């Protein structure tokens, strides 16, 4: 059994992870509204417990492939704030030198194989990463983050089948926020996720994503089984999307009462309350610390250099083969 000190440390770390994602995305939302972020962004506000919980169970060398709503996955994976903001703001100092933006934040050195602009496309990347772990006989595992909407993509089913067939060390994490872009998940999926997992003979766990500690415990159990050679697992995290599909989405397809209901399910509030009980004042202290880090990163990104065309051109291939 973990000691009280260890438990407190875990609660503190999970609150910090949830808090970081929440505050970063709130800041992104304001920057976007102010026109400082080009393109469009997809916020995971309300879903932070999943990224924070799963990432807390990962080890050095584990890999994750994410989706379009991937800020939280990148941050939980430890992508540094300065290159993160610089990327989303299209600067040369960005994690991807301003070539990818919000939907393509990656940091291979942190095992972050990238957010992804194509729904479902991260799963085969995680599958391949798991294959690499297996071929190299490493003890690492790969995580595929995807939403409930992606479950309608054929490639997800190909991946579930292949992962089971090859007993690959991969954890499929479905963040079920109930929305497939602008459509209700139950309007696009014929059956619950559990039945898909059962069809492929894959171990299935479903938790409420609202509580990062619950997610962390479930992920730890899944990962221990996978690392012991039990083959892939599917972890469904029921969660709520507080915002629209993208920042600025008027959500005309969604009633105000549904947004209000969703906002009550709040991973940030859950962890703050728990930490407050353990260590009064600590949540506010961490929150202030996170806010200062974010402001420093935003200032850094604002002052950063524009992304360079020639450097971009030189990265189409390893050595520019074009003349």
């Amino acid at each position, binding site marked *: 059994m973990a000691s009280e000190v260890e438990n407190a440390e875990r609660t503190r770390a999970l609150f910090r992870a949830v808090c970081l994602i929440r505050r970063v995305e709130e800041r992104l939302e304001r920057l976007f509204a102010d026109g400082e972020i080009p393109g469009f962004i997809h916020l995971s506000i309300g879903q932070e417990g999943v990224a924070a919980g799963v990432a807390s169970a990962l080890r050095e060398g584990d890999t994750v492939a994410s989706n379009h709503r991937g800020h939280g996955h990148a941050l939980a994976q430890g992508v540094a704030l300065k290159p993160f903001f610089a990327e989303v703001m299209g600067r040369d100092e960005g994690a991807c030198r301003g070539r*990818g933006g919000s939907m393509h934040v990656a940091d291979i050195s942190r095992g972050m194989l990238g957010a992804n602009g194509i729904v479902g*496309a991260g799963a085969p990347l995680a599958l*391949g990463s798991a294959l690499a772990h297996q*071929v*190299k006989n490493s003890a690492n595992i790969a995580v595929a983050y995807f939403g409930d909407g992606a479950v309608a993509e054929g490639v997800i089913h190909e991946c579930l089948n292949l992962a089971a067939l090859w007993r690959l060390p991969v954890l499929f994490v479905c963040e079920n926020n109930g929305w497939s872009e602008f459509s209700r998940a139950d309007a696009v999926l014929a059956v619950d996720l559990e039945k898909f997992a059962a069809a492929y003979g894959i171990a299935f766990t479903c938790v409420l994503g609202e509580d990062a500690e619950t997610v962390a415990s479930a992920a730890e159990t899944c990962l221990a089984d996978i690392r012991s050679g039990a083959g892939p697992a599917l972890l469904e995290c029921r969660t709520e999307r507080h915002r629209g599909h993208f920042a600025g989405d008027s959500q005309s397809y969604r009633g105000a009462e549904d947004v209000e209901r969703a906002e009550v399910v709040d991973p940030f509030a859950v962890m703050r309350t728990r930490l407050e009980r353990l260590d009064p004042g600590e949540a506010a202290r961490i929150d202030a610390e996170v806010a200062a880090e974010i402001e420093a990163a935003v200032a850094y990104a604002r002052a950063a250099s524009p992304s360079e065309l020639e450097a971009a051109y030189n990265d189409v291939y390893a050595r520019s083969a074009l003349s």
Partner: protein
Amino acid sequence: MSSEIKFGRAINQALRECMAADDAVIVIGEDIAGAGGSFGVTRGLLNEFGEHRVRDTPISEAAIVGAAVGAAMCGLRPVVEIMFMDFVTLAMDALVNQAAKMRFMFGGRASAPLVLRTPHGGGLSAGPQHSQCLEAWFAHVPGLKTVCPSTPADAYHLMKAAVADPDPVIFIENKSLYGASGPAPQAENAVAIGEAKTLRAGTDLTILAYGAVCRDALKAAEMLASEGVSAEVIDLRSLQPWDKDAVLASVARTHRLVVVHEAVRDFGPAAEICAHVAEFGFFDLDAPPERVAAPFMPPPFAPDLERVFRPNAEAIIEAARRSVS
């Protein structure tokens, strides 16, 4: 003096040597392990390297090519087979949106060094969904390299170059070449991706081809010689990047150009090549560039139709005659 080897066997030899030299090289695809591949190219690899590195997959093109991308990002060198080029439609996201963009999109800090092997071309009455030449699709995507050898030795060397390449390479094998023999590869004659090769020197016109139609181009050059026309035949070997310098230099000598491919004519590789020569070699040209390609229609099944659908030596000779007239 040098021994002969078949086209498919030469690729097999290259794969075997790559796998022996580097544990990171794995081979995956449908029926490539136990059965050795639909065209036998991967025969024997399973026995030699084991089921960990030589894997039969389900019929799941999207997942296996996507997995090859993920594996390549994490240190492996996957060689994935797509049984017929027509089936790449099912794997296009992995190739176009993922593999091709990794290096660029992730700021030069990631890469997907995989090889996708796939057979194209007709002649087997395999019909509209098993005969297409779709290389122009890949040559049009920044971040992918595309090669299409015409001889066993080039196939061997280009496969070695493709596996060693830091970027994703589409390696195209014309089905009609699998049974063809040619001189065995010599280690000292390595081929770099992007290098054309002059198959026959000539002074009156340049015939540019790649893949199986190189043989038709050589046959045409032979017959043209009997008419007193000296044709230079160049095998492009790589489509992306392609050897612009070699082509422009040849046209500067011969002043006439005929481009041949089995892919359909409209928006085919010849369109890009002719446009480039028109832009950068216009004043070297004494006649409009000619294209010899399949007509703009799906490959037909009926043998009589397929015979006229595919470009041949006669069509090349006619184009050459128009060019020099």
